[in-house]
């Protein structure tokens, strides 16, 4: 897990997310991408570290801030970028947009824009696996803000009660939009609170991809062994505003700057460097590779066709020829 190749791979994944989203910002300014867009920049170690511990058959449910989770789960930059453009080649055929990325084949079940609402869904995916004796697990990402929703409480209890194969990853980035953790919660030790539901729970440094991966592997193998749901609090931070609309008035510049010193990408690059040259070469190569991927994704998205308006009513219900 700590070998050079693996770490280099993780670095590449984090870089892809970072550069992909930076490009999204430009495209948003150019009005090629619309709607609400929530950037994951700064939090890449969480999605990448956790996904490194998941297998391809494991399911993921994420939030509206899910470009990172989607890419880490293996969705192609092409399909995600096309989705942001609203094109028919998008991973949701342009019907979802940034907040509703889907890929059923890769068991990526969204892309959910109602805070906390992915949790019950994830419990259901896990329940199906448990009832059929499948080995696979389900992982649900959600925020510190979502922890305050009733849906979190109900799902945590249900999952613990039924011993569901569910990994709950709380991305504690200290804010829910403009509301800071201590204005959201009386008791801010979220892992401790999760443990009170009767499940294993611990916190991890969400700015250290290896730490996240290690924690996630420990949880995942316990879940696969039948130990029931686990809760991981990843302590992280978003470097950008909540969404493209957010003027970010509620955070101190110093706080943001301090967290940027903990950026997981240069940290991992430096670690690779310490592990032996030619690490700079690694980074350069990865950057080039990622830039090519993102360029190609943008180009493909630009060129892709739109869903014709005549097809508006498709995918609301299943056509009669398809049976359950």
């Amino acid at each position, binding site marked *: 897990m700590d070998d050079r190749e693996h770490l280099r791979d993780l670095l590449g994944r984090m870089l892809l997310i970072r550069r992909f989203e930076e490009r999204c910002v430009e495209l948003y300014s150019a009005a090629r991408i619309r709607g609400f867009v929530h950037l994951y920049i700064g939090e890449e170690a969480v999605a990448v570290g956790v996904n490194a511990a998941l297998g391809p058959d494991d399911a993921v449910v994420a939030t509206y801030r899910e470009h990172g989770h989607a890419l880490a789960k293996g969705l192609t930059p092409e399909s995600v970028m096309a989705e942001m453009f609203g094109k028919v080649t998008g991973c949701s055929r342009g019907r979802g947009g940034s907040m509703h990325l889907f890929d*059923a*084949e890769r068991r990526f079940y*969204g892309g959910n824009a*109602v805070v906390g609402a992915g949790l019950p*869904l994830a419990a*259901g*995916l896990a329940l199906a696996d448990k*009832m059929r004796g499948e080995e696979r697990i389900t992982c649900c990402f959600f925020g510190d803000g979502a922890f305050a929703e009733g849906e979190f409480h109900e799902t945590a*209890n249900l999952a613990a009660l039924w011993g569901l194969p569910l990994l709950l990853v709380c991305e504690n980035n200290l804010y829910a939009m403009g509301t800071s953790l201590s204005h959201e919660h009386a008791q801010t030790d979220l892992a401790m609170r999760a443990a009170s539901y009767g499940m294993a729970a611990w916190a991890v440094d969400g700015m250290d991809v290896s730490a996240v991966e290690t924690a996630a592997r420990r949880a995942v193998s316990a879940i696969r062994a039948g130990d029931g749901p686990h809760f991981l609090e990843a302590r992280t931070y978003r470097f950008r505003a909540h969404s493209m609309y957010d003027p970010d008035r509620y955070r101190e510049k110093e706080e943001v700057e301090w967290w940027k010193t903990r950026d997981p990408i240069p940290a991992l690059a430096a670690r690779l460097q310490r592990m032996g040259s030619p690490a700079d070469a690694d980074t350069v190569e990865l950057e080039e590779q990622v830039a090519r991927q993102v360029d190609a994704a943008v180009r493909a998205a630009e060129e892709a066709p739109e869903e014709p308006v005549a097809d508006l009513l498709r995918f609301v*219900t299943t056509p009669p020829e398809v049976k359950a």
Partner: protein
Amino acid sequence: MTGRKPARSATKPARGQPEDGPEPVRTTYREAMREAMREAMRRDDRVFLMGEDVAAYGGCFGVSLGLVEEFGAERVRDTPLSESAFVGAGIGAAIAGMRPIVEIMTVNFSLLAMDQILNTAAAIQHMSGGQVRVPLVIRTTTGAGRQLGAQHSHSLETWFAHIPGLRVVAPATVDDARGMLAGALDCPDPVVVFEHTGLYGLQGTVGDAPDAADIDTARVRRRGSDVSLVTYGGCLPRTLAAADTLADEGISAEVLDLRTLRPLDFSAVAASVSRTHHAVVVEEAWRSGGLAAEVAARIMESSFYELDAPVARVCAAEVPIPYAHQLEQAAIPQAADVVAAARQAVD
């Protein structure tokens, strides 16, 4: 609670039994629904039932009594009081290939799960560009008439019928209680089944091994030529009673049972109205913004020049249903109200 009393139901099995077919079985709406679940679980091991008190208690209205003994606590699954979580869990399990039947005790409590129902179950197929389907059946009770007060007596079928992505059905006969659940389980999309609590004791007959009933069409429950009485669910018996009274007065009323509330089988409504030229829509929901408004508006759109009078609506008074007997009965549609509206329509 499940005893068999002599028949008093005015409804008949809608599909004729062939002479040499299986013996029709006398049963109740409650038992028919239970048998439908039993059969579904025997037939398909992806089917399971979950909800509050469906197992140890036997279902708060006794519908699932005995099922846990046959299928075990995994497949007849008591849940905590967590409507959002267990409805959402039903959605997730359905997506992952199971065929869950989720019971919400009453539609009043479905409000606690409304986010999951509208924002996830109904929307996810579209949001995912057709990749994700939710073959989930939600069963819930509806309706007033048992003095349960404002928080247990809503009729919110109309809200569900407003939601693209859902199918909504309201079996109103014993036969449909037996058949429509199987139809719902065959549907690849989320189906909400409304069971009016006043119907559970209804008696009737079903075939020995009934097939899945269609969940697409409305059905004429009584033929008539002067006025179309359009209704569904718990109002069907009252509407049939009204038709009896009207017949005594020389008014021939056709009674149309909508059966499926979304999508509406509107061609059946239009066909009936084109025969009778008068229509009264009967439902237990509050009048403003009820489903009766939709039916009335569509009749106007399709049959304006065939109508001899405006479409009338007989609905609940616009009041949270009160406890006191006389007030509750005054709040909800009675056969006499239907009679009066029909009389006025054909006048």
